[in-house]
């Protein structure tokens, strides 16, 4: 039953471009991006219990580094992604080291992550090599000459790229959740003192979580850079980005493999549907949609504080 359901879903996702229009694909591409970023955040917060409100930093570095490498040296983003990963992990290591070395936890740690994202934003606003606040622009190749190894292509191409990345991220989370590392992270999240008494090295466990999470988030950056083909520090590193990407995992269900998937699959289309609904109802006042979206968030967290997926899984009997 479970396998049949999973296979049917996989088949539907693979076949979607045959039936879905471009608009639907563009929404799905967004969904997959949010799944990827949400899974990265889910690993760090949901599994290792470290609250980050600065994940835009890793996404942003993952966007800028491959973009710059491609722009200046013609390096394929398929290679550049690893450089972006390294940069993001370096930033994660710095934040993690500070936080762990000085015992900065909880809300304080969250603020530390915000501080680093903001510091990076201001720094990038002033770096000439990144185009500063004026932005970094990736040239567009004419249609027909788009090269997949340069991560260039139409919506169907990006649909499959983001689908693969989202599925890969979910697979990695599923694997990690059952691995030794995942167990230790969850132990540290639930009770660091007890975990340490059993022999878990807190520093190492938490650092691993930060590094894996920042690396995964940086992959989403490559898509941001090469899908939109322009980067501005004030957009890429903005705190609202960090906040946007944590909504799906929380609403879907933190610390579960499918929570971020369910969250993204509900929230992004919900936002689109609200926009369309508001338009159709003739309530074309700017802000109506955001009010409705805010009320939706309040309602969901009120009714299902631990997220929709754990509840749904119980109802479906697939927990």
């Amino acid at each position, binding site marked *: 039953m479970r396998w049949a359901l999973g296979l049917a879903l996989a088949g539907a996702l693979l076949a979607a471009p045959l039936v879905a229009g471009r608009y639907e694909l563009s929404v799905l591409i967004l969904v997959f991006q949010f799944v990827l970023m949400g899974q990265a955040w889910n690993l760090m*917060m949901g599994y290792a219990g470290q*609250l980050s409100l600065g994940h835009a930093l890793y996404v942003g570095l993952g966007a800028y580094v491959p973009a710059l490498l491609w722009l200046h040296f013609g390096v394929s983003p398929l290679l550049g992604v690893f450089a972006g990963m390294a940069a993001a992990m370096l930033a994660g290591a710095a934040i993690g080291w*500070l936080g762990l*070395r*000085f*015992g*900065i936890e*909880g*809300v*304080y740690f*969250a*603020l*530390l992550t*915000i*501080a*680093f994202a*903001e*510091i990076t934003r*201001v*720094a990038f*606003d*002033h770096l000439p090599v990144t185009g500063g606040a004026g932005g970094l622009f990736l040239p567009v190749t004419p249609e027909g000459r788009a090269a997949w190894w340069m991560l260039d292509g139409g919506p169907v191409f990006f649909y499959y790229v983001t689908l693969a990345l989202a599925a890969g991220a979910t697979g990695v989370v599923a694997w990690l959740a059952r691995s030794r590392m995942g167990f230790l992270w969850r132990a540290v999240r639930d009770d660091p003192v007890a975990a340490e008494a059993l022999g878990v090295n807190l520093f190492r466990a938490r650092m691993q979580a930060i590094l894996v999470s920042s690396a995964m988030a940086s992959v989403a950056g490559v898509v941001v850079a090469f899908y939109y083909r322009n980067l501005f520090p004030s957009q890429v590193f903005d*705190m*609202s980005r960090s*906040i946007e990407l*944590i*909504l799906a995992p*929380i*609403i879907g269900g*933190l610390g579960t493999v499918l929570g971020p998937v369910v969250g993204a699959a509900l929230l992004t289309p919900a936002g689109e549907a609200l926009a369309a609904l508001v338009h159709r109802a003739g309530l074309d*006042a*700017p*802000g*109506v949609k*955001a*009010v409705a*979206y*805010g*009320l*939706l*968030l*309040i309602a*969901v*967290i*009120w009714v299902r*504080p631990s997220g929709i997926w754990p509840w749904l899984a119980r109802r479906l009997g697939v927990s």
Partner: protein
Amino acid sequence: MIMAELLLGVVVQGVMTGLVYGLMALGLSVIFGVIRVVNFAHGEFAVLAMYAAWLAHTQWQLDPILAALPIAAGCFAIGYGLQRGLVSPFVGRAEHEQFILLAGVAMVLLNLLLMGFGPDARPVNLPYALDSYAIGPVILDKARLIVAAVALVMTGAVIGFFRFTRTGTAIRACADNLLGAAVVGLDVKRLYALTFGIGLACVGAAGAMLVTISDASPVLAHGFTLQGFIIVIIGGLGSLGGALLGGVLIGVCEALAGFLWQPSMKSLFSFLLLVAVLALRPQGLLGKRA
């Protein structure tokens, strides 16, 4: 000599601006310090108060400094109701759940304000808004001077309330030892609602005062929240004097960085200051060690 005079002027400006920042952060500190809930809708409520002050001025020619009192009262009621009706079940729950709740509140409030007042900044033009005093090389604006003075008085009043009134003492007891407070029969829910109300009243008064310096506009909200958050952490969780001190530190730090360095990079320095405080004195400058 000229440089020294200029620097003195810049530092004084930083202190004044910082006191305004501190005043803005006071309400966040009250709520965060007692209920341990980060009010992510902090900035939105400040903007709400700014619009209220704008309305009071355009409709009834009420000076924002006078309007601050009824606006604070209104915000108190909103805060009390909000805690009772919405936030209460989330007290003591995971931070991310509180976060989503209040981020949702912020989103609703901000966009209601956008729908109600539009995106254009709403100015309150007061006869004294552009007055300033020159004391030697230092120039002091009248509006900032008034707001800074109110910041000091208000902080004193709130500290006094928490120290010398029965309710205030009871609220502090809740903050220090929740279980103990419940055991000795304090109505924690009511006290928390009062605290949220008082916190929002501070935000309301601060927002109302702020229109003497800055125009009401929805785009301000995010900045207020983030800055308030930083100031509270730097000053020390639950320390009201700390909020003021944190504000002044940020104000002076940004003013000096802006003057001696590039102004567009000044926020960088407040974040670096924050990182330094987190690392070296995580409980904040005036906070008690946990």
